[in-house]
């Protein structure tokens, strides 16, 4: 910002709003992480204070790690999220390329049909999906989750990516054609690198709901073998007693992988959100 456009009251105002928002957004996260390091008495006695020497306790984490399978749940979550993300990005980008690049009969209808999923929540079809999975013997497999999440993520991915792909220079693609590149090479080597920011945006929007989802793991893959982290954390939620230490520790741990993935994508993401606004 240049000095000419900077005024003190405005700067203070802007910062005040942003700081307030940050505090509100971070508050629950900090509360969870903070309390995960406290003893049970500490959590109930003074939930809003940071752990002190007296209330500091790693019991939550030892419970979680003691519950041998927790790593396995983590692994399941990670496999499901990464695989779904990969398929959503691959197929989403391919469909978006076809819709934006080729003129064929029914192009617009196809685009609308593919975008319909944005408006209709996939959970409405849960019963049918369960029947389908039972019929195809995929219940209690990670494949079932990956398939469902891929379907869930595709509509938004196609919608966003096709808008971005329309902006990729036609001349560039045509230059590739004249140089004898195949349509696949044009897609993978010329177009994809140019829409990378949009891909990162889509990746983040796709990844978080998948990682946090409880619904489909509960219905489609509740077995010990295929439990995801969110489902695994339910273990500590009893009908009569709830092991808060363990739940908070599990949730704090569950934040980590998403955070790592987010950091990987965020450098691209920022460009994705602002691209078009500033050339």
């Amino acid at each position, binding site marked *: 910002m240049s000095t000419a456009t900077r005024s003190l009251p405005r700067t203070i105002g802007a910062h005040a709003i942003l700081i307030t928002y940050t505090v509100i957004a971070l508050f629950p996260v900090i509360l969870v992480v903070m309390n995960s390091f406290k003893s049970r008495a500490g959590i109930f006695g003074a939930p809003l204070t940071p752990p002190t020497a007296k209330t500091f306790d790693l019991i939550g984490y030892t419970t979680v790690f003691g519950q041998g399978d927790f790593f396995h749940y983590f692994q399941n979550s990670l496999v499901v999220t990464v695989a779904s993300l990969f398929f959503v990005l691959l197929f989403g980008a391919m469909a978006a390329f076809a819709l934006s690049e080729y003129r064929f009969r029914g192009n617009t209808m196809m685009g609308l049909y593919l975008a319909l999923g944005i408006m209709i929540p996939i959970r409405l079809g849960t019963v049918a999906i369960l029947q389908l999975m039972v019929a195809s013997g995929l219940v209690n497999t990670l494949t079932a989750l990956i398939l469902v999440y891929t379907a869930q993520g595709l509509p938004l991915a196609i919608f966003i990516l096709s808008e971005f792909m329309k902006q990729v220079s036609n*001349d560039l693609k*045509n*230059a590739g054609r*004249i*140089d004898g590149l195949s349509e696949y090479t044009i897609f993978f080597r010329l177009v994809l690198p140019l829409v990378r920011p949009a891909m990162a945006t889509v990746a983040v929007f796709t990844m978080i709901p998948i990682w946090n989802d409880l619904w489909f793991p509960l219905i489609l893959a509740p077995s010990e073998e295929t439990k995801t982290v969110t489902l695994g954390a339910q273990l500590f939620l009893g009908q009569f007693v709830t092991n808060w230490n363990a739940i908070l520790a599990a949730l704090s741990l569950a934040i980590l992988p998403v955070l790592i993935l987010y950091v990987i994508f965020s450098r691209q993401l920022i460009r994705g959100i602002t691209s078009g606004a500033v050339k």
Partner: protein
Amino acid sequence: MGSLKIENVKKAFGPVEVLKGIDLEVTDGEFVVFVGPSGCGKSTLLRVIAGLEDSTSGRVLIDGADVSVTPPAKRGIAMVFQTYALYPHLTVRNNMALGLKQAGTPSAEIERRIKIASAMLSLEPYLERRPAELSGGQRQRVAIGRAVVREPKLFLFDEPLSNLDAALRVNTRLEIAQLHRRLKATMIYVTHDQVEAMTLADKIVVLNAGRIEQIGSPMELYNSPANEFVAGFIGSPKMNFIDGAKLGETAKTIGVRPEHLTVDANSGAWKGTVVHAEHLGADTNLYLDCEKAGLITVRIFGVYNAEPGATLYATPDAAKTYRFGADGKVLR
């Protein structure tokens, strides 16, 4: 080596007919320029020739062979785009090499061709740079280099200079002219800048609304335009068109170029007042509001001092006056 024939090519995008039957023959080694107003279908025609767009009907023959089902890479063409269209992730060298690699050219041969092309276009210092690290003029030279290394039968240029500034445009224009002379290749060049058209072309094709209005050498088009459109399009400042009825003529419209009018302070055919004078040094453009002829432009060579509001008489050179009928065609 490098002739082109287009037979009754039509192209429609849905219900919109963009090319309405184009017939054209280009002989080997010719420099042909397509000109026409924006949206008349120049780029579309070029893309049909390149194979980037299928024609709705008609045939395109390169060296006598019908290429309707030949993919762009196999047509023996190279194209230079208005937006350069360089591969952003490749160095200048690899930008030029990519097409040859795809075609399976041996690497020694690729190296040799890049060497020649980069020397020709003074690109040697930049071979290891990426497009983002080059200026606009350098980028366009790389784009031309990428076309040259393919050693095509046919070069296609789509407004290659329109993103460059005026000085650079003159230089690059010169380079393209030299390139044509040196390679003796057939070139098709799209522009809506008529200076480029007049200076580069062996043959100009004037397009309007998807049709060819006239084909001819620059001087043919200047001296004997077939119709009002061509007469108005070729030449700068634009030809004056005067309602024939006002002059008591049988022709619908009378056309006279600004440079074929003379002015005199005391007597002449059309009396008028000076509205505005543009002093360009080498010549002067006067805008006269005439009683009979309406607002006309007069181009006078050298300096001519005329104040707005002054009365002047303009006289057309009778031998260089064009008469157009009601259908816009020239009357002979």
